[in-house]
């Protein structure tokens, strides 16, 4: 059986649905499991592992990430907080398949990227598999892509940062799930993080234009200086105002992974498609 953390989130949810649809037994490891669901167990980052959590589970797809943590908590919740799961699996001879991110790379400026990178190391040390997707998209997507689709359905006026031409790789959610399923079946030995995105990068602005075009309207872009946006986001975070986009995400976007690191990552057998309307319009 396969366990999936973060199964209530966008990416984890897509993965568990795909695994089940392709006949793989998968149990959701989530903070608040429904009482009557035999295929869900209670798991929370940062908490000690309940003894029975991993019963019958040989591999865990680790997609959980606590984005609400701030400052030192980011590391405590997401890196240190994942270690009991990693250790529990190792003791049982199990394995982790971690959903990391292309924001995780040596020299990253974001806390998110640093936390993912440290967790990657812990996973790889324990013979686990690490996938690095880019911006995940698909029909009914959550995350940043989902927020963009929803925002652009209301108005075709979007603020972008510094022209919105920062390099960005995209990952179709279905293909990511397929890759996870293939890796679970094959028990491939990965030597390092696997690049899990379309080979040719795009930009946030190009994505916004595509979404607007698919919705039948012309995009009007307002370019804001990165420093101004960062200041605004930081102020909102200090004031405790919840926003769908964090100052840390801005750091990830503004300072993307270098091409030397992208090209050095291992590749999978699955070719990820480029962003295309038929892949997100259901």
């Amino acid at each position: 059986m396969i366990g999936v953390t973060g199964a209530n989130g966008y990416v984890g949810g897509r993965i568990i649905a795909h695994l089940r649809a392709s006949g793989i037994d998968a149990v959701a490891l989530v903070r608040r499991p429904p009482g009557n669901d035999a295929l869900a167990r209670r798991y929370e980052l940062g908490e000690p592992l309940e003894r029975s959590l991993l019963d019958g589970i040989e591999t865990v797809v680790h997609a959980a990430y606590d984005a609400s943590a701030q400052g030192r908590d980011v590391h405590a919740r997401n890196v240190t907080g994942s270690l009991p799961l990693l250790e529990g699996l190792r003791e049982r001879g199990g394995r982790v398949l971690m959903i990391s991110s292309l924001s995780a790379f040596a020299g990253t400026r974001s806390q998110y990227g640093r936390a993912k990178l440290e967790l990657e190391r812990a996973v790889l040390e324990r013979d686990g598999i690490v996938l690095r997707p880019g911006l995940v998209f698909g029909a009914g997507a959550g995350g940043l892509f989902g927020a963009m689709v929803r925002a652009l359905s209301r108005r075709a006026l979007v603020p972008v940062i510094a022209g919105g031409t920062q390099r960005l790789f995209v990952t179709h959610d279905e293909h990511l799930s397929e890759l996870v399923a293939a890796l679970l079946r094959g028990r491939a030995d990965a030597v390092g993080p696997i690049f899990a995105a379309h080979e040719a990068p795009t930009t946030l602005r190009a994505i916004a234009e595509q979404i607007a075009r698919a919705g039948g309207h012309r995009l009007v872009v307002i370019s804001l200086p990165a420093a101004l946006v960062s200041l605004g986001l930081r102020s909102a975070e200090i004031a405790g105002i919840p926003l769908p986009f964090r100052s840390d995400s801005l750091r990830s976007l503004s300072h993307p992974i270098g091409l030397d690191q992208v090209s050095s990552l291992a590749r999978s057998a699955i070719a990820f498609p480029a962003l295309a309307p038929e892949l997100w319009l259901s």
Partner: protein
Amino acid sequence: MSDSGPSVVIGAGPTAAAAAKALLAAGQRVLVLDTGLSLEPEREAARRRMAATTPENWQPSDISLTRFTAAGTSVRGYKRLFGSDLTFRDDGVLELSVDPGVGARPSYALGGLSNVWGSGLLRYTDRDLGGWPIAASELDDGYRAVLDFVPYAGEQDEFAERYPLMRAPDGPLIRTQAGEAVLSRLRRHRPALAAAGYHFGASRLAVRVGHPAPANGCVYCGHCLDGCPYGHIYSAAQTIEELRGEGLIEYRSGLHVDRVSEADDGVLVEATALADGAPVSIRSPRAFLGAGVISTTIILQRSGLLPARAEIADSQALYLPFAWIGRTGETGREPGHTLAQTSIVLDDPAVCANPIHITLYTYNDGLSERAREARPRLSSLLGPALDSITRHLVVGICFFHSDDSDHVATSWEKDSDSVRLEPVPNAATAATVRRFQRALLRSLGPIGLIPLAPLSEIAPPGGGYHYGASIPMSESPVFGQCDTLGRPSATRRIHVVDGSCFPSVPGGAITFSAMANSHRIATTAAREDPR
């Protein structure tokens, strides 16, 4: 003379490699004759050390040895390979004097000019081939055959409507942030630019993009213009070495081919051995001349197959900096490739009767260094601001059709057996360049890509290394021309396979089409005498 002997291929550059491949595919035996100069041992050793590791582990001494100096990159200088003048080094056999107004030089290196080429893989279309006796579609099989052994980085984009890809590229060579910003802005203004005659798209380059890097493909170290230590930028030397290593061809280097002559039963190739100056004669049923345009032209002149004064048509290069008002990323510091990032074609008969090709280089780590060299006082005055300024520079290398360019005359003096290269000015060139720059200012200026005409520099004829047409193909060749299989008038077994046989030189990448044409000629010729 035995008909079962190998066909002779003269030269070991791109067109020679393509001919050798075609002859092998047709089941023929092949003997390659080459001068075959190679890299100095200390530079080759440094290259090997670099190729054995990742760029962050390169030794500073190896880097400085294999990077070219500021002087090596100027318009009038010669492109260097791993810091070496190998590509344009003289072999000391032929007495050749080159007028200072000429940029062309023969190459005696294994791999020829492909050691330092821009690696562009954009094909010709019928629009480019006005006055040619063959249609662009007749090169299709050749293009595909070449792409079978040449790596191919590119993308499926709007450019493919005008310039078919010919096969699916191996993958993209990712642009720098500035390169991406420039191309996406061009794309945003596509309708207006298309109406003004502009076509553009991602560069298509003969670069390996496999993963993981650097073992299988580009690692974005930015060393491209000095030569790729990993060999991921294609060079014809790779094909020749590979065929030789597999025992598929016979390769004889250290020979400077002087003359070719034809009898009823075959071809006599006369050469000089570099080692001792001794004459060498080789007989073969058929010879394919792919020595590179200057060498081939001179061989033809010395063989009496071209007049003693012949003209090489140049597709002249204009080096045109642009000021880029837009995102630059960390140009010069971020990892990236330094080859052309974007291709633009301006096809507007009001500007020029023929399409003009522009390749944009948006990543250039050497620009500040060169500025410091050229304008030391101004540069020191600017201090750190110099980097911010050069980061906003995009360098365009623009290629004009040979009808709109100066040419090069090659004069062979029989008595002294010496050759002189001189410029042949074209009165129309300057006016075309002015119209072109004004058109760019009108169309690209408003979108933040401003041509800096006062800083532009037109290369002397031959200085962009896109030349040919010294023995143009014709349906009914007369003396000084060849037939559609590259055979000089009155010959049956000698084929000119390099750019010398082009009827004209269109703007844009020349090597890819020269290779495709060579492959076409060799394939067709092999059918004439099956063995």
